[in-house]
């Protein structure tokens, strides 16, 4: 299937109408409309409806006119923090700073912010909050910082809750964030590299201008002292470029040399340093009068282009490395502890000790490993273990930190502090995986040492030989040799190509965080997949066998019943389209059975067949599966997930649209495919059979996933695609680590590559891109080496003048650049996701 056809197919499946607010597809049959400037627009959910209305009432309609792309973010579906969790002054104080002038300062991590218009609507929409002094959005880092009047901790906490609630009302999600040191470091690096580029850029342009005047003078005749002036000016300006712009190259070169290694920066620093140094020597020794050539222009331009490439690479890397790879990022901000007298207090998860009693609200994240003391609920461990079906828990059961509580309040006894939980092991494992990852070396890096040594030896030998042949020609010939053999084109070949490949893949919706992944892709022997959320996605519920009334009525009622119920199943129900809202009375959740409520005097139930249809169970359907909707005990409708055919084991999930094609194309490339999942045996087997995958592991914990990938590395490495928290260590150990965009920040930070629109076929795009990149890198290196080898004998024998050598070197570098640029030209695939990619940049 072509990319376009695939896209159309995807769109048709998802329905073509896009939500006015977030741009996500409006579920078919859903009928919520908002009126904007007198015209009615469809929205996809009540969260978006509320956001549109709030933005309109604040007079900020320009948001919709000026934004570059819809937010792609449904309110409440992101990192959303419950504002009430921060109402407690001691908790809020952890995230705030109060200064002496009676103001509190706080910083929040934002979700759903894509362009300048989002930042604008936030700043203006929040500006009216009482007591708020200042609010500003840092778009590049997805942070909002604010300060408000607060004379004590209470007031500060109130301000924080108001702010969070205000952000939610505007349709964005936010959590208070502790000031990230890493973020400040990235800012600093960015500023430093920008300064270097600026100095090198301005300097190089000016040097180039002077150089052109100089070259023109060679042909039209120029007084020697005028020429000397031009060259002296070049020397000063290039000196500034080298001293302030190329600093970073010298520093890394020095560090790698001191560590006893050879890096790409060594020849770069050497070329820059020697180029300037030798030219300056020519000037100072009066070489201008003898008609000797100088290379200030080449040095300045070389520095500028190299800095530019580095900057692009660095900004891509920083954008997705911003997640805090720390334990407290995975835990709730606050947890309710109950002391021996039954007093409740809010404490930080890190303060919990073994033996403490804590309370977990419905839908809350469990903060520490614990044993249930009271309450019956369902626990969703998908993020932690990859298990897709919730687990019922009762007093006596043990629960792991990081699980999400279901519909009922639980009281736990803490078994061990959060720092010793299985959850805490995940950041540790990831750190270990990263440390053990083999230092990825560019091809160029591996031979750079050899080339630099060779260049120096050849230059020294040439100089020595010419000393005996003709001492007057030692300098020009040695210089020509150095210029010809300068590994500039060679040094450029790899980074320039990788930069071009990164840009091209970005257009295809594949964000390359670490471009060296393209090089590692060549040695892959296997492709491993996570199951839940990667090969599969949550299924859609289908309403079947309506015995009375219309299907729409039943769906409306079911969605109404599942409103505000924190259960994975309820989330699936709430995705269904509704056309009418019911008022419920006596709405309650029956643990492990379903939900019920009184509507218009009749008792409606939604849940397990034998519970819901208690009054008059249909004997024929008694053994039937599915979720029943009953009115006063009589069956009205049955709900089923559109699971895989013949696989009732896979309830609640379905294969992602591109899964089958992706797996078969990977196999066609000669890669072994396998599934490594934390989910149950049955479910993994069902998916494996559907995809024709023979190797699969089920019930694997994060540490074992990592071990499996370590094993695979011995044979050349495996690609791993995952999305869960439990996949983070495996991603760290994989040859090429790919995360879905829907993964949490923590998991994304472990990946080399992020698939922006959760399109599995992007794996194929990546491998194709890697092939093409490799081909072009190989061509570039081949060209650079053969040019050097062919021209070197001519230079050594004194047949090339230094200016011709410099020209040849520049032409060689330009050819390498042009060849790399071919990568950019070949992306004419019409793709919708470029819009989404835009929102990410």
């Amino acid at each position, binding site marked *: 299937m072509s990319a376009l056809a695939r896209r159309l197919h995807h769109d048709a499946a998802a329905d073509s109408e896009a939500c006015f607010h977030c741009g996500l597809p409006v579920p078919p049959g859903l009928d919520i409309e908002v009126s904007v400037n007198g015209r009615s627009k469809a929205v996809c959910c009540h969260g978006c409806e509320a956001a549109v209305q709030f933005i309109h009432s604040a*007079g*900020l*309609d*320009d948001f919709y006119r*000026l934004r570059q792309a819809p937010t792609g973010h449904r309110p409440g579906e992101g990192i959303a923090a419950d504002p009430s969790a921060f109402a407690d002054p001691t908790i809020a104080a952890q995230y705030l700073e109060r200064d002496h002038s009676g103001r509190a300062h706080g910083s929040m991590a934002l979700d759903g912010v894509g*362009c*300048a*218009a989002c*930042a*604008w609507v936030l*700043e*203006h929409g929040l*500006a*009216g909050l009482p007591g708020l*002094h*200042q*609010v*500003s*959005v*840092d*778009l*590049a880092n997805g942070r909002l910082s604010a300060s408000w009047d607060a004379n004590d901790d209470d007031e500060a906490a109130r301000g924080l809750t108001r702010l969070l609630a205000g952000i939610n009302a505007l349709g964005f999600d936010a959590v208070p964030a502790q000031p990230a040191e890493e973020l400040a470091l990235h*800012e600093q690096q960015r*500023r430093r590299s*920008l*300064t270097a580029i*600026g*100095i090198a850029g*301005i*300097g190089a342009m*000016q040097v180039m201008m*002077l150089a052109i005047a100089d070259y023109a003078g060679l042909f039209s005749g120029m*007084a020697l002292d*005028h020429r000397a*002036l*031009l060259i002296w*000016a070049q020397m*000063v*300006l290039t000196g*500034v470029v080298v001293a*302030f712009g190329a600093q970073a190259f010298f520093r890394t070169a020095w560090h790698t040399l001191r560590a006893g290694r050879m890096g790409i920066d060594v020849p770069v620093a050497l070329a820059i340093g020697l180029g300037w140094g030798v030219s300056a020597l020519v000037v100072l020794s009066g070489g201008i009068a003898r008609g000797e050539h100088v290379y200030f222009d080449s040095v300045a331009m070389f520095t500028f282009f190299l800095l530019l490439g580095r900057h692009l690479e660095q900004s891509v890397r920083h954008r997705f490395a911003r997640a805090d790879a720390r334990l407290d990022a995975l835990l709730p901000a606050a947890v309710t502890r109950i002391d021996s007298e039954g007093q409740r207090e809010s404490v930080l998860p890190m303060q919990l000790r073994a033996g403490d009693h804590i309370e977990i609200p419905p839908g809350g994240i469990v903060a520490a490993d614990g044993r249930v003391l009271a309450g019956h609920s369902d626990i969703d461990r998908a993020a932690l273990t990859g298990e897709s079906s919730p687990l019922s828990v009762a007093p006596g059961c043990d629960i792991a930190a990081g699980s999400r509580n279901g519909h009922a309040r639980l009281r736990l006894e803490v078994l061990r502090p959060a720092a010793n939980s299985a959850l805490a092991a995940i950041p540790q494992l990831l750190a270990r995986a990263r440390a053990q990852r083999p230092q990825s070396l560019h091809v160029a890096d591996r031979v750079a040492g050899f080339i630099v040594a060779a260049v120096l030896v050849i230059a020294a030998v040439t100089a020595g030989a010419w000393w005996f042949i003709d001492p007057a020609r030692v300098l020009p010939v040695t210089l020509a040799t150095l210029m010809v053999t300068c590994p500039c084109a060679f040094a450029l070949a790899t980074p320039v190509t990788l930069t071009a490949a990164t840009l091209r893949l970005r257009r295809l919706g594949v964000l390359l965080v670490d471009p060296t992944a393209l090089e590692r892709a060549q040695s892959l022997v296997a492709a491993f997949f996570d199951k839940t959320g990667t090969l599969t996605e949550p299924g859609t519920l289908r309403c079947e066998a309506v015995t009375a009334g219309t299907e729409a009525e039943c769906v409306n009622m079911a969605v109404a019943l599942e409103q505000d119920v924190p259960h994975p199943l309820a989330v699936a129900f709430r995705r269904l389209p509704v056309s009418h809202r019911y008022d419920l009375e006596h709405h309650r959740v029956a643990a492990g059975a379903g939900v019920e409520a009184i509507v218009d005097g009749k008792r409606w139930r939604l849940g397990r067949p034998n519970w819901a249809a208690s009054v008059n169970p249909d004997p024929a359907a008694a053994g039937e599966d599915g979720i029943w909707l009953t009115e006063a005990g009589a069956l009205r409708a049955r709900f089923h997930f559109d699971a895989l055919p013949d696989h009732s084991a896979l309830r609640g999930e379905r294969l992602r649209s591109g899964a089958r094609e992706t797996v078969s194309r990977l196999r066609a490339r000669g890669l072994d495919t396998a599934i490594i999942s934390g989910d149950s045996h049955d479910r993994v087997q069902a998916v494996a059979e559907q995809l024709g995958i023979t190797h699969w592991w089920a019930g694997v914990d994060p540490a074992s996933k990592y071990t499996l990938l370590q094993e695979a590395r011995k044979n050349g490495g495996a690609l791993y695609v995952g999305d869960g928290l439990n996949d983070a260590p495996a991603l760290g150990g994989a040859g090429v680590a790919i995360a879905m965009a829907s993964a949490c920040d923590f998991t994304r930070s472990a990946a080399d590559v992020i698939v922006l629109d959760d399109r599995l076929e992007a794996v194929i795009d990546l491998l194709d891109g890697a092939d093409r990149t490799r081909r072009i890198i190989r061509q570039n290196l081949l060209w650079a080496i053969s040019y050097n080898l062919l021209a070197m004998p001519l230079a050594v024998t004194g047949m090339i003048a230094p200016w011709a050598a410099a020209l040849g070197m520049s032409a060689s570098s330009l050819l390498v650049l042009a060849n790399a640029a071919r990568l950019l030209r070949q992306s004419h695939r019409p793709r919708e996701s470029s819009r989404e990619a835009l929102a990410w940049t």
Partner: protein
Amino acid sequence: MDVIWLLIPLSVVLVLLAVRAFVWAVRTRQFDDLDREASRILFEESSQSGQQPEDQRHD
């Protein structure tokens, strides 16, 4: 052509001044957020009509 003795050194000084100005701009964080500054003019203009004076406070 003797004016070149003045003009070339002058150009060098000007370039150094330009570099200095650029470094100053980066240090004062003027390049921190390029996306927003590009469209700021659009937003400020339109916010005059529908907004309370409060929204001027954070500028």
